[in-house]
């Protein structure tokens, strides 16, 4: 978590990305001007509620956007051994054939449905190995066995021949991780990897990913709405709302010094054992309909701190020091000084005290 990141270590750089979907009701602007950098060995967490565009962003990287989706603007640059490649300019098919599974791999949300029920575990792991690495069948098999062992599956010989339905949810997610790691990718994208698992397994899977990341020095993008997961794994956090990144910064900046009212809301709605209030906080309202053009700040109607300008002009991104960037008019020098909710302040102070001893 060095403050100064070397540009040379960048592995992925997203600039001004716009993605929209054609639906029967009109065009949905799902992603609006996303900017994000990923560095070698770093873990980024993209946080946001359902429909905020987290998954769409990473599916664009993988070239697996739904067929009615298209990238309107921007670039996704992948730095492959010094060469900069703009994935947006490539056909989705070419991204898949050349990078997916090989350089960029993905772990999906629900292990119960993401493995092919009619193919053995072993064959499913061998598939990308045989596709991307020039190895014999036997070598691929050996590698698949090693991978099963790496992800902590006991008795790989037996599991190799089994079908997904014979494995538990946690084991299946390990298999999905093994598939993702099969060709030593540089980037691992985890789309809510623990949401569908029970809590005891969650921690183990996160440990496993962290462990492998450390061993292989890969960069990880987490997509999640679970701030607990973020706190455990991330170096850098990007908060998304209605297709935009509204606040980003390293983990300390986001958790201890949040600036955007939406981030305040998110952090406040995290359950906490020793809160004074007996009700769990929830952000009022729901996400805007992205079919309509968003006037001003998309969060303004749900924002109790909204200024008049929030309803008219979209806030630019303000640099508030360090790596911390916030898209809120509240950070403008002329804006009235607004403090975060008291409850949250207390909670953060308490956390800070614990951390600093």
């Amino acid at each position, binding site marked *: 978590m060095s403050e100064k990141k070397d540009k040379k270590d960048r592995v992925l750089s997203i600039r001004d990305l716009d993605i929209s979907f054609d639906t029967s009701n009109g065009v949905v602007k799902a992603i609006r001007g996303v900017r994000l950098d990923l560095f070698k060995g770093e873990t980024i967490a993209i946080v946001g509620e359902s429909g905020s565009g987290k998954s769409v962003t990473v599916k664009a990287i993988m070239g*697996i956007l739904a067929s009615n989706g298209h990238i309107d603007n921007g670039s996704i640059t992948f730095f492959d051994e010094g060469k900069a490649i703009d994935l947006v300019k490539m056909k989705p098919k070419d991204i*898949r054939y050349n990078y997916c*599974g090989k350089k960029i791999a993905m772990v999906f949300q629900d292990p119960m449905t*993401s493995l092919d029920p009619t193919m053995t575990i072993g064959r499913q792991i061998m598939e990308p190995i045989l596709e991307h690495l020039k190895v014999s069948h036997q070598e691929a098999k050996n590698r698949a066995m090693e991978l099963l062992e790496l992800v902590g599956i006991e008795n790989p010989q037996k599991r190799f021949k089994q079908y997904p339905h*014979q494995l538990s949810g946690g084991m299946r997610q390990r298999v999905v991780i093994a598939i993702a790691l099969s060709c030593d990718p540089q980037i691992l994208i985890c789309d809510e990897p623990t949401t569908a698992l029970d809590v005891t397994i969650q921690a183990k899977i996160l440990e496993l990913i962290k462990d492998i990341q450390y061993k292989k020095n890969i960069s990880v993008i987490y997509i999640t709405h679970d701030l607990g997961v973020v706190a455990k794994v991330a170096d850098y956090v990007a908060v998304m709302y209605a297709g935009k990144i509204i606040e980003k910064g390293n983990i300390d900046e986001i958790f201890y010094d949040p600036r955007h009212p939406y981030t305040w809301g998110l952090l406040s709605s995290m359950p906490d054992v020793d809160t004074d209030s007996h009700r769990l906080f929830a952000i009022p309202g729901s996400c805007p309909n992205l079919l309509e053009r968003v006037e001003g700040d998309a969060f303004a109607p749900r924002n109790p701190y909204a200024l008049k300008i929030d309803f008219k002009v979209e806030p630019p991104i303000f640099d508030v020091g360090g790596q911390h960037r916030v898209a809120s008019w509240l950070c403008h020098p002329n804006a009235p000084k607004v403090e975060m909710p008291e409850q949250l302040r207390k909670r953060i102070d308490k956390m800070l005290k614990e951390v600093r001893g």
Partner: protein
Amino acid sequence: MGKYITKRVLIAIFTLLVILFVLFVMLDKMPGSPFNDEKLTADQLALLNAKYGLDQPFMIRFINYVKCVIKFDFGVSYNIQKNLAVSSMLATRLPISIQIGLQAMVVGTIIGMLLGIIAALKRNTWIDTLCTGISVLGVSVPSYVIALGLAYFVGFKLGWFPILYNASKPFISTIMPTMALSLSPIANIARFTRSEMIEVLNSDYVLLAQSKGIKQYKLIINHVLRNTLISIITVMGPLLVGLLTGSMVIEKIFSIPGLGYLMVQAIQNNDYNVVMACAFIYSFLYIFVMLIVDILYGIIDPRIRVAKEGE
């Protein structure tokens, strides 16, 4: 797998026995007799009944019948072809019906699946609309309309194929009936393949397979088709039985000496043994095909196969 098959076979045999019993009861309760001639006196009737064993109590008649059926002896025809063994009547007619049914099934499955796969891969384009249009047509137009159309245009106007069944040219004679009969399986299988395949294409495991970066054709063959096939096999069974049995109208139009034609004739003439035999054969075909489907299902779907092996 062996245990699984044994169990299915036993269930099939039991089901057949039940069907046979129900048929027997129904025919027994039906008004009318095979000996409807008014000139027969009561004594003569009694004599005839005794000769054919119809004077015995119901259960004994049933048990006798089952014993004979096991030996493929369905008794003799009472009045269609007097005293001819039903089994030999079946022997000449059944193969023709089965041949036409199977031909229609093969054609229907191949063309239907092709249409369905193309429609699913090119969904929401004009190709999809065309394929869907063909299947809607196939479902909604009755097969005898197609049969008559074919008989008139292809058979009569163009003269490519014989209009009526010609025993000296058995294969050529079955081409038009096969075409007429295959339209409904084409339509059904195309429709089903399309919807199933779209579902599979949208599944998480296909997305994961895509994200592995494997080639499109491997993705379709190894992941999409296999999973689509599982569901298609389940509809193929009933469809096949429908083809084997539902060809009565087609057989009539093209004058094919098949099973359907025989059954209609037998019902009209109160020919008990023939009706029983036909109904039994239909039930047998149905249950046999379903059994095959179950076994195939087990071979394709490891969730069934492996569970039956016992871990």
